[in-house]
């Protein structure tokens, strides 16, 4: 038998936090994917909400493009507050 499709599992640990990737499960359909995610990844109150997404639906960046994609930010240090020197006696800034 062919493997069931792979699903990625995301868990919200508690209200106020975003869902975070926990792992993956195989399942025949979405309902089963949720059930497997619950049994596999939340046996110890790890979350209050689950997302499952077919792994094939995730579009990801190529690690080989990490340079062109993310390096340009490195020479834009003026985007950070510490780039600007303000005298000590100026408060609340």
């Amino acid at each position, binding site marked *: 038998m062919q493997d069931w499709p792979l699903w990625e599992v995301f868990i919200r640990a508690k209200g106020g936090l975003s869902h975070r990737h926990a792992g993956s*499960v195989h399942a*025949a*359909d979405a309902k089963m994917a949720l059930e497997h995610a619950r*049994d*596999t990844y939340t*046996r110890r109150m790890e979350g209050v909400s689950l997302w499952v997404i077919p792994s094939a639906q995730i579009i990801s960046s190529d*690690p080989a493009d990490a340079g062109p994609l993310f390096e340009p930010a490195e020479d834009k240090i003026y985007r950070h507050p510490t780039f600007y020197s303000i005298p000590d006696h100026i408060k609340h800034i």
Partner: protein
Amino acid sequence: MYTTDLSGKDRKKPAPSAAEDPALLAAFEARVANDEFIEPKDWMPEAYRRTLVRQISQHAHSEIVGMLPEGNWITRAPSLRRKAILLAKVQDEGGHGLYLYSAAETLGASREEMIEALHSGKAKYSTIFNYPTLTWADIGAIGWLVDGAAIMNQVPLQRTSYGPYARAMVRVCKEESFHQRQGYELTMALCAGSKEQKRMAQDALNRWWWPSLMMFGPPDDKSPNTEQSIRWRIKRETNDELRQRFVDVTVPQAEAIGLAVPDPALKWNEDCGHYDFGKIDWEEFYAVVRGEGQVAKERMQARVTAWEDGAWVRNAATTYSVKRAAAKVAAE
């Protein structure tokens, strides 16, 4: 639970294949040496991928087969408390197997292939599960010693260089600690009980002590993959280092509840601050690796039967999902 690398056939040192770009290889080696994590889509040498698939899938198989010796005792647990604990532990082992299969799948191995390799006997799993669980005290010894040895092995693997494996290990280690504690507590209860109960606990320790030491794998000088695996940060410590640490922490635990470790050569060595211990019967270890463990056949039989008996459920679920998908398309 845990498995060490038990591959018998491809023990040749993995050499970088000629087709691999030396610049990519050098960049990879530098990243690993710098303790960076390697992620699924990153470039990696074929030998690194192969070693990981073998190690992670063996580890996964060990978790799955590890459910069998204990599952045997669920219906025989002496109290509801112990039964609930054992059920939760066995369910955890199944979960650990699933985390690990998923991690191996990120390297291109399919679940189907891995399960097939286990059932056909092509894939190895930890030798420890081919010993029988004869009495209830064995459930205590497994938690205390076998899971204890597993933790010793898995803690450094939380920093293994392959990201998905390391993350699976973080989750496993968090859960495994209860396994060891419940086993020790069970053994402690037996030692505080009747003479017969204490004798049962001692008998379990006698039978599980040496196989537990073997779980760390062959001695370093007989473990040719270790050097490469340490260089690639797949392994962080050698078999002998981990084994010594296990002996050092476990002996006082046995003494504290009045049990005797079955090793006449065991002696605290003041000079090096470790226990000296007796020679391990490596012939027995290699025999079990070859599939000559006392209950190796029964274990695989039970595993294959469970898989085959569940086939109709998997088929029904597949058929249902296909039908529902077709109905949905028709309705649109």
